[in-house]
């Protein structure tokens, strides 16, 4: 079908859309879930970007308690001069060095060259300003935390968790077939499209109950005052620098999840999916659809 809006036709109010008989729109996402989803998008985006600015204050990661243990950083972003005296950006990971001028270590903005870990277009604030980045990060951390707790309470109370997210026995049995379907970009239609598929369920549960709590815990672990609990609980996770490393790794794992999530949103019908997360209405794809 035609995915491009015709600018000559004036916009009609979205909510008054008549529901076509042959193509039933059905309420896929409850209003509470839609609101919390978009709050989460804003909070996680700003936490990622301010987090990268915080990382830029010391763009290196270590294992253990200390950064100065005699062992080198396992990941480091930096800048050095080449033979011509020009700055060269590099990324060093586990002993392998990559030249990353333009993106990592050395990047430009408005014709000016900056030596900073992640580039200005990826960070909040865009140029080195640790105090402000911390303010952004902690503010949206509270928004994220409160929103996340509300979400978990809602999913349990409304039975969204038990009904829609926990895989059934049939789901688990069909996991092999679901993997094959995903790899072939074959997506469920009709009744099956109304439910989350098994890989989707596992992915959401893993993000909601493993990755997000873990990144919060690792964030708390960087606070020297909170480390006073249990005589230094951060040691259970390998020490403060390990905790900082895990925080960073989980952040990028979440970015990977979002990329896959958005990819699936696009290939299974971008506008239909997006509408379902804004107005709640989802048109169930049929066998003969080409979207």
């Amino acid at each position, binding site marked *: 079908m035609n995915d491009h809006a015709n600018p000559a036709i004036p*916009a009609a109010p979205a909510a008054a859309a008549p529901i076509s008989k042959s193509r039933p729109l059905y309420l896929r996402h409850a209003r509470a879930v839609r609101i919390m989803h978009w709050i989460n998008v804003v909070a996680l985006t700003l936490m990622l970007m301010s987090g990268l600015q915080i990382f830029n204050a010391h763009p290196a990661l270590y294992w253990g308690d200390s950064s100065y243990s005699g062992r080198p950083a396992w990941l480091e972003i930096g800048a050095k001069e080449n033979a011509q005296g020009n700055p060269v950006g590099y990324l060093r990971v586990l002993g392998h060095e990559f030249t990353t001028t333009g993106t990592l270590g050395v990047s430009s903005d408005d014709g000016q060259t900056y030596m900073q870990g992640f580039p200005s277009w990826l960070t909040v604030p865009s140029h080195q300003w640790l105090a402000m980045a911390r303010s952004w990060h902690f503010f949206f951390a*509270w928004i994220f935390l409160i929103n996340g707790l509300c979400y978990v309470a809602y999913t349990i109370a409304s039975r969204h968790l038990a009904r829609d997210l926990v895989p059934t026995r049939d789901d688990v049995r069909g996991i092999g077939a679901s993997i094959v379907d995903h790899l072939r970009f074959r997506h469920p239609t009709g009744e099956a499209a109304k439910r989350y598929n098994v890989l989707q369920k596992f992915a959401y549960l893993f993000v909601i109950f493993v990755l997000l709590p873990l990144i919060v815990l690792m964030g708390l672990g960087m606070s020297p005052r909170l*480390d006073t609990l249990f005589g230094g609980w951060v040691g259970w996770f390998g020490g403060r620098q390990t905790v900082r490393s895990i925080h960073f790794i989980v952040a990028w794992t979440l970015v990977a999840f979002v990329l896959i999530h958005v990819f699936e949103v696009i290939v299974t019908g971008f506008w239909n999916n997006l509408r379902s997360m804004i107005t709640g209405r989802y048109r169930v794809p049929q066998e003969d659809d080409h979207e």
Partner: protein
Amino acid sequence: MNDLDRGGRRRFLGRIAASVGALGVAGCDRLSQTEWFPKVLGSAEVLNGHVAKLVTGRKAMAQEFTPADLSPTFRSNGTADPNNPQYAALAANHFNDYALEVSGLVAKPRRFTLAELRALPSRTQITRHDCVEGWSAIGKWQGAKLSAILDDVRPTTAARYVVFHCADPMEQDGTSPYYESIDMDDAYHVQTILAYALNDQPLPIKNGAPIRLRVERQLGYKHAKYVMRLELVDSFAHIGDGKGGYWEDQGYQWYAGV
């Protein structure tokens, strides 16, 4: 009909996406420059401090380590050698002429020579120094308990903070001396010491000789180096830009436990 609806809705959604993108980084930068928005953001950091103190309790102890954990060299950050002629003169004579002045809201203002500080009840601790930038280093510190100094000078009931005035100027022209402040809970905490030794050696100049503050439950910028004078106050509004510390005046949080 339906196509018209879809077209309208798509255009609407497209506009939302475009405005969100335009807001993006530039919008965040503009908000960061306003007077009011950083205050809104900062409220969360104040909340951080309250919650962290509430969860852990007033007397909670910072994690301590073993000699095996010590960093081979303890990193110097910020000032490595104060650009201050009076300090240079003290350093030239191995701080034999140094005396820590304690004044402000105390019953008995006085000065402590290095020998007097060394004679006070002391504590030795191997702790992790966490910089706000993200790095950590582990060092062994020995110093006079700040509580012992306070017991001697007897703060009045009006005293709410201890201010640490330092010898290192933060401006090229020798102005804007470093300073910091902590509340009485941290001042009387067992691990809060005025350190005169690092890793069993006299405190090196790059790490804050002759004495520096160790306030182990907070980030590195609270650990004032080159401490020359303690002042007990009920408010730090009259010092520097009034935020309680050099970095606080640049926008960092006064409570640095998170």
